[in-house]
């Protein structure tokens, strides 16, 4: 257990700069969002909504008015496309750490000592979880700082329940991609694992958008994990669908299980 903790601590130490910079950028961006939201009146939002192209309206669906409000803009940090892509990439990078350790030969030095192989995966899960929680915390901290500094007196900000739902939804989506990337990371070289996981994530994202615009694709749309990420409904005030969380959780668990299985059976060689 002590060895596993040391392994976690070392990994955390090595990625601390990446996590700090990403976290600070997220917090800063979120603060800026609140500032932007506070600088517009309700009338402005209606005008922005009117300017939206039909395709964006279709994607947003009935949530368009909720998203284009002070509350919606503030909550946007949890589902902004740029942020989601950045966080998925971060998660994939961290989840493929075992592949990097095997590729560089550092795993040889670790596993030549009395340490079970599964700790490589358990450590990575802990690291991914820590990173996701830290990023969500930084978004919340950015929201809080923005609200404290820029929010108009009559604005109350997103309710705690809604924030928690959005954070949980985003966290589960990231964890899901962490599971997928970890399975690849346990099986392939980092040069294969990272692009493969990223390509799948990008394809899944495109598929999700495509099936919203083109209903004929709905028959394959269920394959995309992004389909089970429903922040617009949450912004509208709907409760978090448990079945969506279950699907994302199942993908995550399958990825983790595959990673454990692969790492315990494969040859550790470059």
């Amino acid at each position, binding site marked *: 257990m002590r060895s596993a903790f040391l392994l976690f601590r070392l990994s955390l130490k090595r990625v601390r700069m990446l996590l700090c910079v990403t976290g600070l950028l997220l917090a800063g961006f979120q603060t800026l969002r609140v500032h932007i939201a506070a600088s517009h009146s309700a009338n402005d939002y209606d005008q922005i909504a009117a300017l939206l192209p039909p395709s964006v309206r279709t994607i947003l669906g009935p949530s368009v008015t909720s998203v284009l409000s002070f509350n919606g803009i503030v909550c946007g940090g949890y589902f902004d496309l740029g942020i989601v892509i950045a966080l998925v990439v971060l998660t994939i990078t961290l989840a493929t750490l075992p592949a990097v350790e095997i590729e560089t030969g550092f795993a*040889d030095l670790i596993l030549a000592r*009395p340490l079970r192989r599964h700790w490589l995966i358990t450590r990575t899960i802990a690291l991914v979880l820590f990173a996701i929680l830290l990023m969500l915390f930084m978004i919340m901290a950015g929201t809080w700082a923005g609200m404290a500094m820029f929010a108009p007196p009559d604005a109350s900000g997103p309710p705690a329940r809604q924030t928690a739902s959005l954070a949980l939804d985003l966290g589960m989506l990231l964890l899901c991609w962490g599971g997928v990337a970890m399975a690849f990371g346990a099986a392939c070289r980092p040069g294969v694992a990272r692009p493969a996981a990223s390509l799948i994530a990008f394809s899944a994202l495109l598929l999700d958008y495509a099936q919203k615009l083109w209903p004929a694709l709905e028959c394959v749309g269920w394959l995309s994990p992004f389909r089970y990420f429903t922040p617009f409904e949450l912004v509208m005030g709907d409760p978090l669908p448990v079945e969506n969380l279950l699907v994302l959780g199942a993908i995550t668990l399958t990825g983790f299980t595959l990673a454990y299985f692969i790492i315990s059976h494969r040859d*550790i060689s470059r």
Partner: protein
Amino acid sequence: MPKVCWGFRGSIARWRDSQALALSNQYVLQNQEAIPYEIGRPPPSVDRASPPAISIRGLTKRYGTLTALKDLNLDIAQGESFGFLGLNGAGKTTAIRLLLDLLRPSSGKAFIFGYDCWSEGLEARARIGYLPGELGLYLDLTGLETLDFLAGLNRQPVDKRHRQELCDRLELSQRDLRRRLRQYSTGMKRKLGIIQAFQANPPLLILDEPTEGLDPLMQESFYTLLADVKRSGATIFMSSHVLTEVERVCDRIALLRKGEMVLLTTVRESRRLAPRRVRVLFSEDVSAHPELPPGHQLTEKTPRLWRLAIAGPLGPLLALLEGLPVQDMEIEEARLEDVVLRYYREGAV
């Protein structure tokens, strides 16, 4: 109903079984004359009651149709220093990685101090100090961070004084240790690799090409260190293709060729296997064609000079030279290199 053994007792029982299996099996090597060593015989200083440091039975590793290691059988006694020789791709590193459970065998078993390398891998690896052939280090860490981290993964705490002594002997200063590894030269990284393998004072050292990248002075320090470690009772298992190094450090050698062990012998015996080179200089021209005894080969013949390669005792040659005008005679000591080359050449034919 088979008797079920648990824990260490189980390991000992399994080791005994494997010993029995080894006795019932003859090692089948190519070039049959090259098995002068009594298999399983420990050096005199070793406690016979304890299991071998390394025991390998029928170890095979296949990658698809390629056999990287084929039916390796080997016992290395505690306190012994053993050299694993072979050209690149002969299977040396594969065997080492199998012992460390980094690779999974296609068939066969291996034991470290009686512990099964796979089912009791933690116990086995707790007794190993490993120096890989190619060190995979994180270049953003300092030398000290790397050593501390790797020391923390061992079961026993590392004696800081012992580590300092190692650093002093390999001339790696505290200042060097505080530098990031990206600033290290190849030799410095190698030194760090040696220190991380030796720092926990393990009873078994597995060293893969240990002096690769070390300058001659450091190689000398390393050999002295190895000699000291050996004197303290540790077992050394090293792979190398530097024959002089193996000759100097090891008690016994095994030669691998294309995944198969083709020679298992003591270094001393190996010299006996190698033909000695003899140069005979005559004071007058000698035209006679000598009838050479078995094991003698005339490699060069001029009226005043014979060069011979002699496997076996020199007595018959001296008898042959009786009555001839011998002015001078030079006998070169047999070299391990000759044995190895011979096995490789024969294999290539």
